[in-house]
């Protein structure tokens, strides 16, 4: 268990000793800041959910998750460093969870920086702090799910570009599947696909409600991705 933290710590060290952490964070925060400004100007309302709940931000978040997670395991497999980690007494799941945790901590740091927007809103108007908080919870959960998908695709290949593209493809597919489902409402397949949509579970958080079904959806997505990633790491040795 301690090894989860050991691995996460080294990964954070790697993030911050290269430009990856700074560049991805700066790019994401710049785009989020632009959206924030745009929605503020047009709506003239102190509501952060316009920014957090926008499809634009969600798409940028997908790209962010793909880029931040692509090297996690792909790089170790390409360079062979994984051999030294896995010949130390480290369990496969500790490796996966440690890597994931590092990307999650990086994401949290970014969320904390983006809180300046809420402070601006509080100065300018009277934002609904409950809705802002639940919006952030939703934002964190959907980000956590995307990072887990990225961790999975990074385990499946030793090529970082392939890992990133697969992550984007899976995330976009999970997003668009909702619209397929909505074409045939009432049928089992239609409802199933609507419920499977990663973005559909996101809106609830924006108006201040925290529905356990949505929380459970994202947490299961994280658990399933990390579970599959662990199995994929094990499976690599059998080939």
């Amino acid at each position: 268990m301690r090894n989860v933290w050991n691995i996460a710590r080294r990964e954070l060290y790697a993030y911050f000793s290269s430009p990856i952490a700074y560049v991805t964070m700066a790019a994401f925060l710049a785009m989020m800041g632009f959206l924030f400004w745009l929605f503020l100007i047009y709506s003239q309302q102190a509501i952060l959910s316009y920014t957090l709940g926008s499809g634009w931000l969600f798409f940028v978040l997908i790209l962010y998750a793909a880029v931040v997670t692509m090297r996690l395991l792909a790089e170790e497999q390409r360079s062979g460093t994984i051999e030294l980690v896995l010949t130390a007494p480290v369990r496969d799941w500790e490796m996966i969870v440690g890597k994931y945790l590092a990307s999650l901590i990086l994401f949290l740091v970014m969320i904390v920086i983006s809180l300046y927007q809420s402070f601006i809103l509080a100065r300018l108007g009277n934002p609904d702090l409950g809705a802002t908080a639940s919006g952030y919870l939703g934002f964190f959960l959907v980000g956590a799910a995307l990072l887990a998908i990225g961790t999975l695709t990074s385990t499946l290949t030793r090529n970082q570009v392939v890992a990133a593209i697969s992550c984007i493809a899976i995330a976009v597919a999970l997003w668009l599947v909702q619209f397929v489902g909505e074409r045939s409402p009432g049928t089992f397949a239609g409802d199933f696909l609507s419920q499977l949509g990663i973005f559909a579970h996101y809106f609830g958080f924006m108006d201040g409600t925290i529905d356990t079904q949505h929380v459970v959806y994202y947490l299961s997505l994280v658990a399933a991705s990390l579970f599959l990633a662990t199995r994929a790491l094990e499976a690599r040795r059998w080939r």
Partner: protein
Amino acid sequence: MIEAENLTRYYGPTRAVYDLNFHIDKGEIVGFLGPNGAGKTTTMRMLTSFLPPSGGMARVADFDVFYDSLEVRRRVGYMPETVPLYPEMTVLAYLDYMAALRQLPNRSQAVDRALEACGIGDHADRAIGKLSKGYRQRVGLAQAILHEPEVLILDEPTIGLDPRQVTEVRALIREIGREHTVILSSHILPEVSQTCGRVLIINKGEIVAKGTPQELTAQLQGAARVLVRIADAGPEAVEVLKRVDGVIGAEPAEGGAYQVSCTQGYDRRAELARAVVEQGWGLLELRSVGMSLEDIFLELTTEETPTEGALEEPPAEESEHEGEGGGGDA
């Protein structure tokens, strides 16, 4: 300390290692010798629990490499070929990370000891990516001895080093081998004969010979098969050759030549020549042809001669003393 029984490994349909059986006692230094692609790395990866065997089993310190993988990994120090390291980390940070992964109780002490043993204390604060190949190799070795493992497994520990570094690393391995069980692999004979007490020759995934370096050299050098090419030989040639003392069999080969098998360890070429000439035939060619082991032996001894063969050993020995002197000063 280490046992392998019928150890087998397939990569898909390709057979990398087949039916290996060996036993290594505590405190031995054993060399896996074989040409590239013989299955040495695969065997080592199975002993370190990195790869599961496809068949058979292996045990390290009485723990099965598959079922008790964590226990095995706690007891084994491993240095893979072309030591993969994180280039952005400093030597110190990297060794501290590996010590943390191994959950050593006193990390900084273990790291200091490994740094000193491998002579890289001066480079502790440098980024690994900026180190020379020789120093990276030492970082790999330091990482492998951090936890004072009962078993040390080194895959081609001296590959790609200059002669001076080679002798330094060999000396270090002998030093470590006094207290630990060591397995190292190599594709050059001088390397294992200098450092190892016992050698397993592996070819195409199978053990083809084992013994001390002296035993193997003696076993390998006897001429066992001889090719005789005769002009104008009669049909009785096979019979004539068979009658020679020490010859087990003879059969015609292409181009008027005959393959003659002799008792292992005896050179019968002189007797064969006399027998042919006594018949009044013309002896065109007479040479010993390698048995499979000798082929391997030749390959192993000649392949790297330009850089590392026996011929270069004397100067290398000199630089060893130099190296030791330098170490003392530092």
